């Protein structure tokens, strides 16, 4: 099936700014779905609020555009009531880790089978450029006009510690790698976290002298390195990309079905 058949074309053009990385993430996501041969009616996409969350309007799946930060909680209800469905949850960095931080930790802890894609542009874009939990110390936002004194999370370490059984990171520059990672994340049985670094030239780039969208993409190329690559050994200061965690442990919905079988016997 051509990738465009997964889109609701009548709702284009999309609302993302020129140069935004979110369209690239959407592209990688749809190619991953297409490559896995998933039926559109077997996929539910649940999103929260923000630029990232608008992705759910453009895809021809069952789509639920919910509340800021709460996408994983809604998705948990969908998955547990119909475990056969594939559930994909795109989130922004503020969406997933500030207002939705608790839901994120607990979804990871339960190891519920869904794919959380954190479209990390390091800023609250839709509201005009306020700093997020991933903006980083010393960076600038409309609410950090003198430089941010909030430290940032490392999404990979956070997700790993919380119990996610698949944890990966890639960027909008490394679109083929991102596609392969998202494909593995969707296929993985358990809670999968993909940090997709995605440039926001409008609201992060402008205030942080990060240059144009192209400059920001090139920064992803220059300042990141594939995990376990030769270059990684030579450049410890660069941010790692790749699959950090891929383990098997009891998945929540499956474990629940087993519990139902045990409980029904005692009935």
């Amino acid at each position, binding site marked *: 099936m051509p990738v465009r058949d997964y889109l609701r074309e009548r*709702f284009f053009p999309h609302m993302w700014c020129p140069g935004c990385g979110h369209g690239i993430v959407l592209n990688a996501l749809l190619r991953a779905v297409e490559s896995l041969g998933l039926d*559109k*009616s*077997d996929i*539910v996409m*649940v999103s929260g609020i923000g630029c990232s969350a608008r992705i*759910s*309007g453009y895809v*021809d*799946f*069952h*789509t*639920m*555009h*919910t*509340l800021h930060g*709460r996408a994983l*909680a*809604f*998705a*948990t*209800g*969908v*998955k*547990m*009531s*119909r475990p*056969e*469905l594939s559930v994909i949850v795109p989130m922004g960095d503020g969406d997933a880790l500030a207002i939705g931080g*608790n*839901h994120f*930790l*607990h979804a990871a802890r339960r190891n519920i089978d869904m794919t959380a894609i954190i479209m990390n542009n390091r800023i609250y874009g839709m509201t005009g450029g306020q700093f997020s939990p991933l903006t980083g110390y010393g960076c600038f936002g409309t609410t950090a006009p003198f430089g941010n004194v909030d430290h940032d999370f490392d999404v990979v370490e956070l997700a790993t510690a919380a119990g996610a059984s698949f944890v990966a990171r890639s960027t909008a520059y490394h679109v083929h790698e991102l596609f392969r990672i998202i494909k593995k994340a969707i296929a993985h049985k358990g809670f999968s976290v993909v940090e997709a670094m995605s440039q926001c030239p409008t609201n992060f780039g402008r205030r942080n002298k990060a240059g144009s969208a192209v400059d920001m993409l090139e920064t992803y190329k220059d300042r990141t390195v594939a995990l376990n690559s030769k270059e990684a050994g030579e450049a410890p200061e660069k941010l790692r990309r790749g699959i950090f965690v891929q383990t098997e442990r009891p998945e929540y919905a499956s474990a*629940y079905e087993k*519990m*139902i079988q045990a*409980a*029904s016997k*005692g*009935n």
Partner: protein
Amino acid sequence: MRSQTQFVQFVQGNIACAEAALYAGLDFFAGYPITPSSEIAEFMARRLPQSGGKFLQMEDEIASLCAIIGASLTGHKVMTATSGPGFSLMQEALGYAIMTEIPCVVVNVQRGGPSTGLPTHVSQGDINQARYGTHGEHAIVALTASTLPDIFRITVEAFNFAETYRTPVIVLLDEVTGHMRERLDIPADGEIPRVGRLRTSVQQGVDYHPYLPREDGRLPMSDFGDVHRYNVTGLFHDMWGFPTENPKIVYGLIRHLTDKINNNADQMTRWKEYYLADAPTVLISYGAAARSVLHLVENRRRRGEKLGLLELQTLWPFPHDLVREKCRQAQSIVVVEMNMGQVLQQVKLAVHDPEKVFLANRIDGELITPTDIHNLIHVIHGKGV
């Protein structure tokens, strides 16, 4: 004729509510522990898996309501249960369920507030929160009851209203009715009607409009995961479920959301009445307070004092017409409740002469007693303290 019963129990009101939810067809519950509602979650944790249903203990009340909304969208009957602080946390998702028209039932076993307040004591302080707690213009359905059989029936009806009007319905219990033990006869199957999900008859391949009401105002649903793929959003949306800022569509949707409840208020009005026919003094009450009122009314009747009781079970949409009608002959109207007059305000709006409406209340965490009410009526009637 005595009803045919499945079995008889001596249980708490919370359990009556939980049993009623199963009777209504509930098979998905998510919740978070909170006094005085936790018995409902504990019941569900044991009973639902035994029949293939799901009970989830979520990370908080926010996630609990979100999770059941998600499960409702795949076609399940769903409920959560909480108390004041948790109900406060649920207000955001309550608005989402209203806006997206996803059926669900939210039980609030009221305790003393504000804030953490009195976790183990009774209150009826959340009547207005149930109505106005979530932001924006909206309508809501909220039911209450004072006996276990009535808790059972109004809980089943809460599920029925949720499905019929595609709306969240709030069941307002209180610490006393929730923890009070008395006889509960579980009605036989079919004794209380059950309303199932209205699903679309639109076939695969034909355009399904999830938010295009039929002529009767109802919107047939399609389960997430079935053949129709559509969008659901908390933004103002068109008939496809896609965000819009078109003023005509915004206006139409907000009227639809409020009219579908308010124009059907008569259909949802539930009440009980005792000795109203010849009563110059009408007491209006609900929930645990109504038990004390009924005790007093029957006691005073034996002494020749003509008191009557109008016990409200539907609090929202408020039955103004019913109250006006039942109070037509009354010389004085006394609203008995455990708050500062939340239902009192509505009664004053309903009756022809608001000067005749008085409040008999208790707000110290203790159940209002028949003696309390008797003394207050004495004062109201100018007979001294």
